[in-house]
């Protein structure tokens, strides 16, 4: 198997070619709003090697009632609720603007049934602006009541529905709220995915100290940030040991060292989520820190050695 992460730091996931191995986590960077805020400088200094869109659904969604955020020790709970314009609105309004970004576009989609996933993948994949599709399987299947990413069988069945629709890379975004995330990853791989990414957020609750009731408008949310990093590393290590497709690791990456930890655990690419909230240019900083650390450790060419860090624990 060709390594997804090359000695030159470039990443290949099927036909998706990335200049370097740092992406954004879906839903943690709205490039359109960021362009309004930071203007063209964002295009010139775009912090990620590819842009992963916020998850879109078939129908438009307003998202969850506020409050949607709660800060925890070294973490953040969000209950955003996938607000988006829906497939049609996305294709019409957002896709043209996202296509102006200087990096490949990965569109994240979530269906509440296999049918919805089929519809989303078919419609999105045929757009030339789209380089790859990420399947967010953290939503419940309204038919089975079961989160599609929580059971290997459900994930396998989903892959069966969508795989034949496109030859573009399909990335399955795994949820950590399961007993055996690697079993789900294996099912995704058997179903023909081109990569898996993990972790999505850990299910979490905050209590309003003044009332004793749940703080978040939707009652519960998902935890991200440094608090989850050690859990994400454990799952990345597991998954990378049990699948051969490239693994995109994320969860609490704040600094270059954190990213290197994920490569050491077997990831071929990493994604930065919550840290971009604190530092919009975190993607670039983290990449620079990695390069500097690798150089310090004496690799000949720092640029070329993201891959080597993963050797100690690689199969």
């Amino acid at each position, binding site marked *: 198997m060709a390594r997804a992460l090359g000695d030159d730091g470039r990443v290949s996931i099927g036909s998706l070619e990335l200049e370097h191995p740092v992406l954004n986590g879906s839903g943690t960077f709205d490039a359109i709003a960021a362009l309004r805020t*930071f203007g063209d*400088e*964002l295009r010139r200094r775009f912090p990620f090697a590819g842009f992963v869109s916020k998850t879109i659904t078939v129908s438009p969604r*307003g*998202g969850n009632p506020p409050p949607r955020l709660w800060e925890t020790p070294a973490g953040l709970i969000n209950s955003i609720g996938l607000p988006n*314009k829906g497939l049609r609105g996305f294709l019409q309004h957002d896709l043209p603007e996202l296509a102006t970004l200087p990096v490949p576009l990965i569109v994240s989609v979530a269906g509440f049934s296999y049918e*919805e996933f089929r519809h989303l993948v078919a419609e999105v994949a045929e757009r030339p602006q789209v380089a790859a599709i990420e399947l967010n399987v953290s939503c419940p299947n309204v038919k089975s009541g079961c989160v599609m990413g929580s059971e290997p069988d459900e994930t396998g069945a989903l892959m069966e529905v969508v795989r034949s629709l496109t030859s573009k890379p399909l990335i399955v975004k795994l949820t950590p709220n399961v007993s055996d995330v690697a079993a789900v990853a294996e099912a995704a791989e058997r179903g023909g995915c081109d990569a898996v990414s993990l972790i999505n957020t850990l299910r979490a609750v905050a209590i309003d100290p003044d009332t004793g009731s749940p703080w978040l408008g939707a009652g519960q949310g998902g935890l991200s940030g*440094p608090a989850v990093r050690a859990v994400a590393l454990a799952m990345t290590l597991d998954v990378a040991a049990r699948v051969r497709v490239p693994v995109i690791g994320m969860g609490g990456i704040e600094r270059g060292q954190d990213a290197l930890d994920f490569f050491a655990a077997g990831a071929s690419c990493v994604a930065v989520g919550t840290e971009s909230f604190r530092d*919009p240019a975190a993607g670039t900083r983290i990449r620079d820190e990695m390069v500097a650390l690798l150089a310090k450790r004496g690799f000949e060419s720092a640029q070329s050695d993201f891959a080597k860090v993963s050797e100690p624990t690689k199969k």
Partner: protein
Amino acid sequence: MSGATPPEVEVGLAAPEPGPRVEAPFGRRACPVIATESVGAYRLLAVEDHHGPAPLPGQFYMLAAADGWGGEAGERPYLGRAFSVCRSRGTRLEFLLERIGPGTDRLGRLSPGEQMLLVGPLGIGFSEPAAPSSTGVLLVAGGIGIAPIVTWAEALIASGAQPLTLAGFRSRAHTSAAQLLGGDVQIATDDGSQGHDGFVTELLEAELEHDDARAVYACGPPMMLEAVRAICARRAVQAQLALEEAMACGFGACFGCVVRTTTGYRRICVDGPIIDARDLDETWLER
């Protein structure tokens, strides 16, 4: 959560009317604190921002201390905190802080020479009153909500307007902040320890009773803003409100800071914090 049912509200992502905005340099930058001062119960923090543009009144910044952010005992603050610009003079930016939790506590303890991390200016600023220029401008400030009003009053005065500011505070301990204001000022305190004994919105009612052809700009606690909204709606007076919501990013990335408007949830960091009072859904305060 079910995708089958249509969303309760419109998505609120449809391009809002573009408000005035100065773009921020991309990324987070370290700025030295150059002065700190107590202003009654509040704290004024001045930083030297060599790499940013001058902000518009109403815009804000995400701030964090370069050291000791992460807080006591592995606790909060973890994310940056949003602060309106209170005054700006060349590369000097001033913020006015009320200490209410770990973030404002940490920022309030910064000393000159220490570094602050800053992203901004963010969001959209106040818009000039709609032409034909109204006979006057009413500014309403509640408590720490005075921060953006200070710089907006300055800008209005500079452009030849004669704003009257109605400033409400809990008590006399807080009213020193009104000294930062240019132009005419009326003060109200909840406990009657200075100025009008009661709510600042009572002053607003009286002023509008007297002359309601004035544009209103307000910043303050949610209940005050709701009262301003209701008063102005009743009298069909144009009002711009500077809202607050907990923010994780400040640049539209997290979708965390939404408020319910008549057209759906709106992110107040990118499509606010200044918002036309008529856009607010009447139930915006209900949780």
